């Protein structure tokens, strides 16, 4: 089914409410006097408004689906343009059915419901560092640029008007300036919509986008000032009024910003205490930000600035405070609201244009407006960039300037403002409205269409999507410190100096107030990247596991051969010789495991728990697909998955680190280790020749068990080891303890890998079951050490040693078949 019939269906659906609305309003008497009790009554009027709104949203969303059915179209034509065209089309149909423009974009709806989500989204996901790094440039463009655009456009139009080309209009200088001020502002919605698809480099993007956000204050002030001037009449405008206008600019912009910051503070503070109401946690973000918008609006300050800064300021603390799930919820909800609002805005811009009542055509006026806004935008950008480049470190080049000039899109804000104008005060309101619509359509459709080819043609530096690298982050951090130190040493106050001071202040005071204690710990960006990378690795591993149809391989490098090892049933001790062999040969690397031993010792009390837990954990893989069918409004059941993910994560991490360790620690032990590897491998070969596939050709229940285990695909030596340790009991640990003393002085490698760095799970994790999987190794080591002391256990130990044949999975990690695998993630994310 192509998009066409689909669209037709939609249109039919849309025309329905319109006609229905007419009919039902035409015959009110019928419904008001019911003859008898109706089992089913048709209450259209009852649901009319929400129904229509919902239908429109549905249509807009469906339209989006339809657009994206064809990648060819969306790649060339920006979605915003498509939506406008669709709007025009739908508007035409509604008009044909109804002959009244019943659906238009009213300023009220726009400013109260559609704009805030978009701006909040912009603020909340604002790349702060980039934004503040370019704040100077952004402010210049936003303030001076907008004033310049407004003034020049208004004045030039007035100048041309005086020549008489436009014919007679009931219009004065102030009206022109008013028009200039509302048409001057670059629109955040349109800019976002178009630039998101273009992917220019981040500096360029942040400048254009930042400008479009911050110029709101200027627009609002200019608009209000000129509107009141028009209202009181030109003869009453005095110098004092003008001065008031300038003062009001500062009040409106700074006031709006302060309101935003205040609510950001409030929001961060609230989010610190939402630990027990996780389920409504995301709601706070939206509600409090929206309050900032409304408050600013109430105080006639710049609402856009308020909500922008609310988002910008709170993001760091809120993201640190709320749980990961909530954070995801916030992210998705925000994106959904914003992109939904955007869709609706553009569609309704199209629909609103289909209304003959508002159309007043004046070719000269409209054309000249188009020419002037484009020309003055270019001149303004060039002039300001020229000034800026004296100060900027990274120069804005000609190409950037072209894109910036061309990216000066006008949009719904201008339309909403012009629609707000009062017909009685501004006589030529309709002309302004029509011109604004033309300008918006022209910029969004024409410039939106052409900006992509332009960017390609000019070879504008594009954003490179690179994975975050740990090294990069580390060096970046080092840079910040070095640069601020150099500034300190040379006695200058610069960017880095300020940033340094701010982050000190933030760390010392703000974070303490606004962040949960646990969040303070993990908020470090480097940690985040680390965490992200690890997660990515873990996911790669799991994906790999799924590809192979088993997760088992993740657990241990040589699981394939070890599947059958299981609970410590005594086995024929045919291999005693090999054990002693190993004992003789492998005393060297024992130190490697000492930290693991210590780990073990720490968790001595939890051993039992751990084992139980561990076993349970193993089986958690089984019901993976199943979800708890419990309903609770206040709780989301996600424990299973979460734990599983975490386990996978930790296991993966361990593997990574182990393989790493054996490489890195090679500095100390390399030769020894290498020698041992070889032996080890020789050993392995021997073992496997004795017992093919590590399976003991034994009889009885054991095998049964082994088979079952295999089916479950969890079976692996860890279990057995844990059990073994359990059986062997404290004695082993104790002895290990003793032996540890002898070995710990050797610098041990990476102990207790990521986990302390991991947020919110520290205590649990430290003794967590899968941590003990590190001890995979330990029992064997320990056993080895321990055997001389307790010959009773000797026999029991042998079998699993044998089947475990790797003996030392640390060393195993270096095994040839394992190496490429363990480095797989790196190579994929490079």
């Amino acid at each position, binding site marked *: 089914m192509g998009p066409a019939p689909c669209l037709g269906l939609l249109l039919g659906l849309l025309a329905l409410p319109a006609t229905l609305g007419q009919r039902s309003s035409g015959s009110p008497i019928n419904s008001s006097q019911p003859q008898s009790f109706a089992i089913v009554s048709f209450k259209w009027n009852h649901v009319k408004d929400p129904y229509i709104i919902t239908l429109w949203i549905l249509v807009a969303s469906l339209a989006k689906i339809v657009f994206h059915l064809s990648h060819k179209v969306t790649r060339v034509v920006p979605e915003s343009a498509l939506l406008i065209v669709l709007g025009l089309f739908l508007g035409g149909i509604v008009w044909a059915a109804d002959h009244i423009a019943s659906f238009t974009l009213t300023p009220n709806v726009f400013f109260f419901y559609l704009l805030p989500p978009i701006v909040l989204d912009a603020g909340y996901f604002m790349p702060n560092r980039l934004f503040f790094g370019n704040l100077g440039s952004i402010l210049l463009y936003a303030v001076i640029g907008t004033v310049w655009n407004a003034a020049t456009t208004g004045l030039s139009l007035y100048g041309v008007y005086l020549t008489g080309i436009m014919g007679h209009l009931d219009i004065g200088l102030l009206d022109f300036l008013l028009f200039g001020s509302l048409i001057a502002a670059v629109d955040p919605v349109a800019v976002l919509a178009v630039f998101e698809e273009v992917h220019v480099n981040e500096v360029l993007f942040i400048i254009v986008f930042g400008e479009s956000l911050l110029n709101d204050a200027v627009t609002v002030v200019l608009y209000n000032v000129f509107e009141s001037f028009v209202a009181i009449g030109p003869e009453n405008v005095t110098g004092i009024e003008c001065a008031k206008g300038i003062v009001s600019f500062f009040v409106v912009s700074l006031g709006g910003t302060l309101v935003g910051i205040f609510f950001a503070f409030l929001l961060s503070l609230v989010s610190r205490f939402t630990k027990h109401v996780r389920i409504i946690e995301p709601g706070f973000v939206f509600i409090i930000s929206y309050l900032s918008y409304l408050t600013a609006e109430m105080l006639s300050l710049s609402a856009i600035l308020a909500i922008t800064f609310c988002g910008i300021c709170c993001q760091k603390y809120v993201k640190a405070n709320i749980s990961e799930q909530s954070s995801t919820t916030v992210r998705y909800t925000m994106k959904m609201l914003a992109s939904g609002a955007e869709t609706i805005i553009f569609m309704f811009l199209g629909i609103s244009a289909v209304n003959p009542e508002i159309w007043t055509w004046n070719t000269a006026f409209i054309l000249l407006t188009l020419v002037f806004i484009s020309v003055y935008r270019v001149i303004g950008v060039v002039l300001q960039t020229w000034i800026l480049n004296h100060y900027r470190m990274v120069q804005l080049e000609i190409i950037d300037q072209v894109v910036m000039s061309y990216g000066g899109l006008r949009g719904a804000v201008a339309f909403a403002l012009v629609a707000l104008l009062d017909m009685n005060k501004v006589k030529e309101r309709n002309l302004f409205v029509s011109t604004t619509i033309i300008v918006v359509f022209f910029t969004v459709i024409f410039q939106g269409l052409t900006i992509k080819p332009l960017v390609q043609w000019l070879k504008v530096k594009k954003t490179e999507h690179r994975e975050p690298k740990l090294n990069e982050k580390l060096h970046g951090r080092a840079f910040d410190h*070095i*640069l601020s130190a*150099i500034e300190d040493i040379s*006695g200058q106050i610069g960017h880095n100096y300020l940033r*340094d001071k701010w982050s000190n202040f933030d760390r010392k005071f703000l974070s303490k107030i606004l962040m949960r204690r646990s969040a303070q710990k993990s908020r470090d960006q480097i940690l985040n990247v680390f965490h992200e*990378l690890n997660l990515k690795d873990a996911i790669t591993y799991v994906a790999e596991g799924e590809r192979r149809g088993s997760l088992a391989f993740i657990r241990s490098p040589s699981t394939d051969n070890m599947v059958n090892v299981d609970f410590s049933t005594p086995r024929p001790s045919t291999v005693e010789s090999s054990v002693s062999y190993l004992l003789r040969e492998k005393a060297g690397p024992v130190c490697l495991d000492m930290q693991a031993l210590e780990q073990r010792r720490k968790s001595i009390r939890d051993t039992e728990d751990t084992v139980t837990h561990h076993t349970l954990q193993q089986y958690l893989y089984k019901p993976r697909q199943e979800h708890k069918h419990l309903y609770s409004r206040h709780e989301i059941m996600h424990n299973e998955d979460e734990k599983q993910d975490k386990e996978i994560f930790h296991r993966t991490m361990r593997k990574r680190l182990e393989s790493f360790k054996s490489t890195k620690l090679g500095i100390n032990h390399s030769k020894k280790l290498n020698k041992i590897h070889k032996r080890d491998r020789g050993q392995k070969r021997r073992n496997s020749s004795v017992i093919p596939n590590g399976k003991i050709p034994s009889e009885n229940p054991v095998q049964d068990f082994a088979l079952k285990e295999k089916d479950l695909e969890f079976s692996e030596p860890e279990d057995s080891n844990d059990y073994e340790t359990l059986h062997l009991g404290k004695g082993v640990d104790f002895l290990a303890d003793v032996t540890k003393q002898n070995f710990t002085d050797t610098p041990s490698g990476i102990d*207790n890998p990521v986990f302390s760095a991991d947020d919110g799970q520290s205590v649990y994790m430290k003794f967590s079951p899968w941590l003990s999987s590190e001890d995979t190794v330990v029992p064997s080591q320990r056993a080895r050490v321990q055997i001389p002391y307790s010959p009773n256990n000797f026999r029991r130990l042998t079998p699993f040693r044998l089947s475990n044949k790797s003996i030392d999975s640390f060393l195993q990690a270096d095994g040839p078949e394992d190496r490429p695998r363990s480095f797989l993630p790196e190579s994929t994310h490079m």
Partner: protein
Amino acid sequence: MGSAHSLPAEMRALAEKTGFTSDQIEHLHRRFKQLSRDQLTIRKENFDSIPDLEFNPIRSKIVHAFFDKRNLRQESDGLADEIDFEDFLTIMSYFRPIETSMDEEQLERFRRDKLKFLFHMYDSDRDGKITLHEYRNVVEELLSGNPHLEKEAARSIADGAMMEAASICVGQMGPDQVYEGITFEDFLKMWQGIDIETKMHVRFLNMEPIGHCY
């Protein structure tokens, strides 16, 4: 030296050598005298008098870099006890921003110099390799600003980073291969695609008489 720097000839020589303008040199010289308390040379202790530096987690590394002879473009190795103004300028010149007049080759050298400086900072034992141990030290210092972080976390981060470096530089390693540390070539490799020249600079050195807008 010292006061002799006001001589135009010497100034010009310095300007030529380090690429600073005479205004910048003059300014830095004033600062130098302030730091050295009108002495001809600066010793490590002089840096203690800078209050803002105190909170810098990698403070010692940075101060160290000033006295590292490798950075002073003398062939010799080791640590200097004191540095004179010329050395001071030399170190500072690592932080000059790129100039538009630079050609490809100059840019490349410029970049290399900056990276070399960084590399020396990490490679504290001067063996031409950033070993795991050295890397861990740096990371620990870097993260020391956060009191909640344990050393282990820092270490495992360093380990992760090292592993990443290994995978970038060596690719897939053989089973017996040992990655001993990041050499300067590897270091260059890691920085590929990151335009350090636009990052590693300090604005003031581009100083013009007008104040700071940002």
